[in-house]
């Protein structure tokens, strides 16, 4: 869920030992804390440098060379997948219980040349860039140059797309007005429901075959297309089974040679599990996890969909297995925790596939955004928490790995015990779990037309976007740089950074007589840019439906089988396209500054303000300070600013929400998130009228601009909930907290109350960054961005910025001591 962006604060992967393993590991026991097996596996996962594996590309190229044109595209894709599952190098690591890797070893990432083919230069860039490197050996680069690149040149999905985009789109794209997800990776964002715990691949294949048998070639005009889809799906089921069987064979082989009797027994158990799943529905907790893992691997091997794959409500899916086995004595809590930990490490072994082209230069994140949902509601509307939910919280707290992401889902029915347990993990300061409002996102989905049950079974994947798990293709199409739209409005359609045309002519703002006139011009640009975006997204959608269908993914998403249609071709029950709008805070504050200083008070002329912005406020510090200190900004529970934010949000909705995409009644909706794209968007922009300097990040998600919220978290919550979140497909609120605000257990409870308050008022999501010393040091360097940093001590509170250097130093030292 991430695009060509440098991230400012990557979540560091820290070794367990440096973390003190949080708990003392017990000899011969599995809990509390990581046992030696998990510590070893975790260390290997964390220490391994990501590499590129060219194996998949070699298999695929050879397969396409031999077979392209012989079969329909869906069948070709399925056979290609089968071929790779049959041939790929397997990995079964020492001590592993959950098995299977996408590459030949942990953190070896394949390439997907059918979508985007890396050049030799790309590999060199990936080998040497400062952050988030992926290394490839020279030998592999040479092989790639010889075997892979010549075949795919001119035939990749990316080239197909860029050869057809209109000039207006290209200009807006190059100006950084929006990004396009699908030019680099396949549309994704998929989470599963409970189907794979009820049905194995053989059961699903039987359903497919029954459908084929019933085909009416005489009367159904789509019969042939459906037949090809179903054939492809059936082949994909076989591919997953073959892949598992090969692991079973390997485990048996290794067991024969194994001298350690305990490991021998484990290997035989692994073989037994892999013989059973995914062919059949799982019977045990272990099989259930391995079942999901094989499906996960299948979907991320078939294509490289955004945001990997996601088990959805994993605790709810695993609960029946856990309870049954605990009751029958075949599983202990500790064993369950160990298996979950093994699974967590598996996900961490799978970094996101790297980009190609100029965007490869920009480092990204290894995170592939598998976001496991914990808690929430069940399809019948009852509370979804169980012992497994708490078990997962333990695992998250102990393992502390980059992936998978995780989130807790809170409804009015969720017990406080769960919320407080989650808040304890939040206090550790890893940035997760993030917290979602199940009651509100169920409403969001119902508004989008989902059934109540499907909505409740849904949740949030990737970052914050909502979808009906297991039944929906909800594709993120790209980020929209809303402040940049204002920037080109203030320059009559020209991008001031490059001097090139980026939008349409909406008039010289110096001639505008009123704020309304300015705002109307902004809306015209907004609608123009969004229409460009939608037009090309629709085109790309069709390209995927035609050239890169995903038959394996279609097997596990309802109703692709019954409709006989691919996941990318309107097969799922619901089909949504999202546009992610960024920078609400920046655009609101900029409009607020223009409104107050130019139009309402008239103390500053438009010419002067635009001149100052063009000069990056050089020589205009007085004006910049006046704006920053004397303008109502979003996030302070001040209607003067919040009303502007509500207006922009509603106008974004009017421009996007409900527009048809071209898939079986599917529609566009918006969500308000930026992941880390606000950093990239900031880089392509000059200064903004809110006093933000050129190149600096714009605001993220629906959060206030950095440092603009100076009235504490309760005011932020009040401002944010003036937006009607139910009309979105997700909003994002980041809150910075100093550890001193979470010192006592009582403070943790109050954090819970803050969350409940936000959710009662209709907030969708909140996450807390517990500020560490590094942030405070950054705050000393750039005080303007950190005006919100509140230092709370008993009987005293102040803003970090309001302290002098010595006292800031003292707070930094205290923060070090208070870190959890």
């Amino acid at each position, binding site marked *: 869920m991430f695009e060509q962006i440098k991230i400012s604060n990557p979540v560091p992967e820290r070794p367990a030992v440096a973390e003190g393993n949080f708990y003392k590991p017990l000899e011969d026991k599995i809990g509390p804390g990581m046992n030696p097996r998990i510590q070893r596996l975790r260390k290997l996962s964390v220490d391994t440098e990501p590499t590129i594996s060219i194996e998949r590309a070699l298999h695929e190229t050879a397969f396409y060379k031999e077979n392209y044109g012989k079969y329909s595209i869906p069948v070709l894709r399925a056979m290609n997948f089968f071929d790779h599952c049959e041939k790929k190098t397997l990995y079964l690591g020492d001590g592993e219980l959950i098995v299977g890797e996408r590459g030949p070893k942990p953190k070896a990432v394949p390439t997907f040349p059918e979508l985007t083919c890396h050049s030799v230069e790309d590999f060199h860039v990936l080998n040497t860039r400062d952050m988030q490197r992926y290394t490839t050996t020279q030998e592999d680069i040479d092989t790639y140059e010889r075997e892979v690149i010549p075949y795919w040149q001119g035939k990749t999905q990316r080239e197909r797309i860029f050869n057809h985009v209109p000039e207006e789109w290209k200009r807006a794209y190059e100006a950084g007005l929006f990004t396009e997800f699908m030019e680099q990776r396949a549309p994704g964002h998929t989470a599963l429901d409970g189907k794979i715990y009820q049905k194995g691949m053989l059961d699903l294949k039987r359903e497919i075959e029954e459908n084929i048998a019933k085909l009416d070639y005489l009367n159904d005009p789509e019969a042939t297309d459906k037949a090809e889809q179903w054939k492809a799906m059936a082949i994909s089921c076989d591919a997953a089974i073959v892949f598992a069987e090969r692991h079973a064979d390997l485990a048996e082989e290794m067991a024969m040679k194994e001298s350690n009797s305990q490991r021998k027994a484990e290997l035989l158990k692994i073989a037994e599990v892999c013989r059973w799943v995914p062919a059949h529905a799982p019977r045990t907790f272990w099989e259930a996890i391995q079942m999901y893992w094989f499906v996960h691997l299948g979907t991320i091997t078939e294509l490289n969909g955004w945001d990997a794959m996601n088990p959805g409500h994993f605790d709810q899916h695993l609960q029946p297995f856990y309870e049954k086995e605990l009751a029958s004595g075949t599983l202990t809590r500790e064993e369950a925790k160990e298996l979950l930990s093994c699974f967590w490490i598996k996900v961490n072994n799978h970094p996101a596939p790297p980009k190609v082209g100029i965007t490869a230069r920009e480092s990204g994140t290894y995170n592939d955004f598998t976001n496991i949902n914990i808690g929430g509601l069940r399809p019948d509307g009852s509370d979804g928490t169980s012992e497994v939910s708490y078990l997962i919280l333990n695992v998250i707290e102990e393992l502390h790995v980059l992936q998978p992401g995780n989130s807790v889902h809170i409804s009015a029915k969720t017990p406080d015990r769960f919320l407080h347990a989650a808040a304890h993990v939040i206090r550790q300061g890893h940035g997760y779990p993030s917290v979602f409002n199940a009651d509100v996102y169920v409403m969001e989905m119902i508004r989008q037309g989902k059934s109540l049950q499907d909505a409740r079974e849904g949740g949030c994947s990737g970052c914050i976007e909502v979808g009906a798990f297991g039944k929906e293709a909800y594709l993120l199409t790209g980020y929209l740089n809303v402040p940049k739209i204002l920037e080109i409005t203030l320059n009559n359609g020209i991008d001031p950074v490059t001097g090139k045309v980026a939008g349409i002519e909406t008039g010289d703002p110096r001639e505008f007589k009123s704020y309304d006139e300015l705002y109307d011009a902004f809306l015209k640009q907004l609608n123009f840019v969004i229409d460009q975006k939608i037009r090309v997204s629709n085109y790309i959608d069709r390209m995927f439906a035609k050239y890169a269908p995903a038959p394996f993914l279609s097997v596990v998403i309802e109703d692709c089988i019954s409709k006989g249609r691919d996941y990318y071709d309107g097969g799922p029950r619901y089909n949504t396209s999202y546009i992610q709008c960024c920078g609400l805070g920046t655009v609101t504050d900029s409009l607020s500054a223009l409104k107050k200083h130019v139009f309402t008070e008239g103390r500053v002329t438009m010419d002067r303000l635009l001149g100052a912005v063009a000069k990056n406020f050089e020589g205009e*510090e*007085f*004006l910049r*300070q*006046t704006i920053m*200190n*004397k303008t109502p900004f979003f996030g302070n*529970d001040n209607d003067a600013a919040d009303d502007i934010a509500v207006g922009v949000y509603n106008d974004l909705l009017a421009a996007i929400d409900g527009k048809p995409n071209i898939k079986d009644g599917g529609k566009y909706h918006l969500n308000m998130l930026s992941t880390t794209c606000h950093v990239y968007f900031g880089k392509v922009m000059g200064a903004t009228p809110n006093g933000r300097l050129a190149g600096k990040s714009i605001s993220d998600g629906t959060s206030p601009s950095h440092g603009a919220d100076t*009235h*504490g*978290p*309760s*005011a932020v919550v*009040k401002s944010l909930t003036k937006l009607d979140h139910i009309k979105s497909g997700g909003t994002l609120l980041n809150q910075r907290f100093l550890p001193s*605000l979470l*010192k*006592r257990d*009582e*403070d943790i*409870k*109050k954090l819970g*109350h*803050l969350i*409940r*308050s936000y959710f*009662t*008022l209709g907030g969708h999501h909140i996450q807390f960054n517990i500020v560490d010393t590094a942030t405070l040091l950054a705050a000393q360097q750039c005080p303007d961005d950190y005006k919100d940093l509140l*230092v*709370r*001590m*008993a*009987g*005293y*509170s*102040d803003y970090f910025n*309001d*302290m*002098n250097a*010595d*006292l800031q130093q*003292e*707070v930094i030292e205290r923060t070090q001591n208070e870190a959890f």
Partner: protein
Amino acid sequence: MTDLVRTGNASHLIHFKFKNQNMNSGLIFDVKRYAINDGPGIRVTIFLKGCYLDCAWCHNPESISPKVQKLYSADKCIGCNTCVEACPENACELTPKGIVTDPALCKLCGICADVCPTKATEMSGRIATVEEIVAIVEKERIFFDQSGGGVTFSGGEPLMHSEFLISLLDACGERGIHRTVDTTGFAKTEILLDVARRTDHFLYDLKMMDSERHKRWTNIGNERILENLKVLAATGASINIRIPLIKGVNDDDENIEATAQFVASLAGEKKRVNLLPYHNIMLKKYEKLGEHFDPGIMAEPEKSRQKAIISMFAAHGVEAMVGG
């Protein structure tokens, strides 16, 4: 009045009729939302300006004077001269050290703060009406409902503004908002009882037990404070005791032992004690007031000492904790 307090025993000030307040309005210097250390739940704390005491360690020195004050931070000043030009009294002057205000000329009109682009100049203290405060408090209602929080009136000494405070307490009470009063306890007993009738919870400061020492460190003897606390406890009021814990001032065995005994002897439910260890993070506030703060011997007691003190309270059956 600040000057008066600093010249000796100021106990007579209790009879001072504070002109900046009446039943409709009073002088406040700050509002803190998401206050989590000022009573139960999530609260909004309203700080009333003016205090009878002048504690050597005061963390909010701008709270002492019951008048509007001008605050100035040289490090935020960009020397733009705007305030100098805007001042109708010609009281401001730009010097190499920053803006210097002539107190003889300054009428505290606040125009300088209004035009200052960087908030280097700010005014501390503004007259607020009961209606205005209630509107601010109402904004936080959802957090009260969820957390069992409410409003806290702190200061300064809120009881110094008794007419205003009583109106505020009544107005919040009518709206079902939980009310906490954070007090030094230095007030006429009848006023304290009048306030107590409309207060759900008290945070009651207890600095030290020996009156002479108390006078030395705060300029006021503690007889009335102790007596008021006994009377208040006897009414059955809900009270948390707050003790600023300062090494070399009140952390000695003798004082702690006496304090623990006293707290244990109070009528009603056992009072909980919040120990607030001294720190000097508020130094900047003194700078802004143009005052000098000398920490002298004052320091934060070591963590081990804090623990020992908690045990001394525990020996008397009193639950003490750091923070809160």
